[in-house]
């Protein structure tokens, strides 16, 4: 049909890559701030384990269920802490940007400006709705003690177990 149409070459233009929202710096930092803000248990601050666990919970709804059962003391649940490199990088950025700081006991805390940021997120009712619901339910009940028990088991159990 199109005999007069001669194609010498085809040029592809590279398009910018789409980045999933979970790997956006500001989104992740916002999430971490919200986590730190909504963990208002006895102790100030959150361990790096807890941040990773909650971030993963916010990432996947299946993980949320596991976390929920672990928090409410369901011993049958097999919990592992997944370390997400993206969370670690976001923590680094937040530390450098003076949004959070690390206390001498190793726990992370919000700085004054971080608190402002988190308060703004919390006050905006249209922002991160399901996240807030989940954190309200879990954040305080998932205590550092429970996580520590889990972490301590690492040394004792091995792959055969």
């Amino acid at each position, binding site marked *: 049909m199109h005999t007069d149409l001669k194609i010498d070459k085809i040029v592809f233009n*590279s398009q*910018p*890559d*789409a*980045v*999933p*929202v*979970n*790997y*956006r*710096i*500001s*989104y*992740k*930092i*916002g999430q971490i701030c919200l986590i730190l803000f909504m963990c208002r248990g006895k102790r100030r601050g959150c361990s790096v384990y807890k941040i990773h666990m909650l971030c993963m919970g916010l990432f996947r709804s299946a993980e949320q269920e596991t976390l929920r059962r672990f928090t409410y003391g369901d011993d049958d649940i097999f919990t592992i802490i997944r370390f997400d*490199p*993206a969370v670690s*990088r*976001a923590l680094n*950025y*937040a530390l*450098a*940007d*003076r*949004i959070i700081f690390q206390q001498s006991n190793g726990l992370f805390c919000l700085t004054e*400006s971080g608190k*402002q*940021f988190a308060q*703004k*997120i919390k006050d*905006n009712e*249209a*922002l*991160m709705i399901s996240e807030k619901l989940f954190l309200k339910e879990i954040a305080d009940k998932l205590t550092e003690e429970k996580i520590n028990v889990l972490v301590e088991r690492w040394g004792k159990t091995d792959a055969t177990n």
Partner: protein
Amino acid sequence: MLQINRVKAIARTGIGNYGFDYNLRPGLNFISSSDNTRGKSSVLVAIYYCLGLEEIIGGKGHKVLTSVYKNSIDDGNNTYGVLESEVFLEINNGCDTITIYRSATMENRSDQLVTVYYNSLDNIEPSNAEDMYVHSHNAATNSKGFHAFLEKFIGLELPMVPANDDKDRKLYLQLIFSCIFIEQKRGWADVFSGMPILGIKEAKKRVIEYILGLDTLKNERKKNELSIREAYIKNEWQKIVEDISSAANKVNFQVIGLPQQPRVLEKYIISPLQIKMRGTEKISVDNKIEELEKEYDGLRVVKPKIVDNFDELQVELDETEKSIEILERRITEARDMLLREEASLRTLSDTLEIVNLDIRNNKDAAKLKRLGSELDYATSKDICPLCNQSIQDSLLPVQYLTNIMSIEENIKHLDSQKQMLEFAIAGHKENKDELKINIDESSASIFTLRRLAKSIRSDLYSINEDLSEAIIYKRINLENKITSLREMKQHVIKQYEKLEALSKEWKTYLEEKSKLPSKKFTELDLDKLTFLQEQFKKNLRKYNYKSVANFNNITISHHTYLPATEGFDMKFDSSASDNIRAIWAFTIAVMQTSLNKGGNLPEVLIFDEPAQHSIITDDMAQFFQSILQFEDKVQVIIGITVKDSETKEIIKELDSDKYYLINVGEKAFKSISVKEH
């Protein structure tokens, strides 16, 4: 027309009533005091308030009133708390006189309530009164809305104009009056600066169009009306077309030559309507009916006995069973496809859900980024907080130096994915519906064929001499089919007639649309605008406007209808006192134009303290002169401070028959036992 006859206010205190009661006359009225106290304002505000126009002063309800209405009265020696206060206003439209009553401070009576007595103030009686509302939802259009009543009473007919929310609203009365009631504080800032903001698009422009009675408004309204009519015809047309198609579809026919969009249906333009069978045969409905009738008649001639046609019956039974088989196969295929469609619908819907969630999360991310940059976070500005180099907004390890999308781009990207998914889902849904219809149709046919097979079978094994059940069944079936086809044809023809009627409406619509003027202004409009411009310039010269070198540069903009010099807003290079002169000149010019060229302005002007910014008294005298030229055609109320001898002189120089002076004195509210005039 509108004329204010009398204004009266009462404030009740513990020791007695205070208030004022003034009669006003046609023509020029001065409400004066020797000092610039709030007495004049208390009188003028009563007029605004009773007419429900207090938004021109700024604010709604009794809070805009001066303190004598709300808090306390000071009689020079003591201060008394105000318990209740109320205002009466008697107005006349050239035919009827009514009295408007509105309470200012009063327990158990809302300040949104206005009572209209259909008598003069001296003769008011509760039996001849009606309660109405201001500043409530629909007060401009509802029959219980005071402004709807006032509009009718003055004899205005306010147009519907486009509002900011793309709906049409009535042009509010407050906007019209803000051009002729120049208030002391806000009114002298700019031309029409007292105009309240009520969500009307280009309010100043619309108001001037209305008060000058420009045809542009009429044309725009006409355009509006036409577009509504267009939408209506299109909608009706669509409905009928759908109805025709579905009626034909039901009996497996289709209508060819049916225009999907409104058109002028003339025989030589449109190919004649054809109702044809679907599928490859494409027999027209008439032929099909004929064919069926022939078959039917054939059956009638066939002897309803079975003796002779055993072989024929056997053949027919075979054929029927074959058809059943084919149909069953078709149904199985269709069911198969239906399952597949449903599966892909499920997958697509799941994906759509994920995309929707993603969009929401991305929007959250965009908001977070904005919040972060409000707090001056380096990361929110795509800058590394440590080394201050620019970074990309991503937490993924950088393997290749590719560009990544910004969050906004990402949202757009996801939005287009969403659109694609929605499109695909709609397509699959359509397929699914079609398959379902096919299955239903085939099932119905199988049912019929089975009944037929059964009849044939019972014929085959029946004793001779019996009536053939199969033939009777076939005949009933044919009869039904013929009736349904005839009904369909009738229906289609009837609906098509409706289309023809609509097409006539469409034709008139097109004709009217073509009649709309292509140019924005009619001759008459241009005439009015030129008159306004000339009057404005004349007035400026008269009042000694100096901020422009050449008066020829002053024009009335054909775009905004406001004064401009060399295309720019005139205010920019006028001095403060010249700005006041311009406001005088424009307000007077608008009134002159409205009077001479048949505009819609109510014939009242209120100027509160026109002598702003130490205006020269000679110019003021000129201003009064141009007001006097209106004679009794326009009622003008001027609040003025007569302090220096110059002002006194100007007023004295005016012909004493031609104006009416009310001296308020120190305080507007006086003990009521003292008679006022």
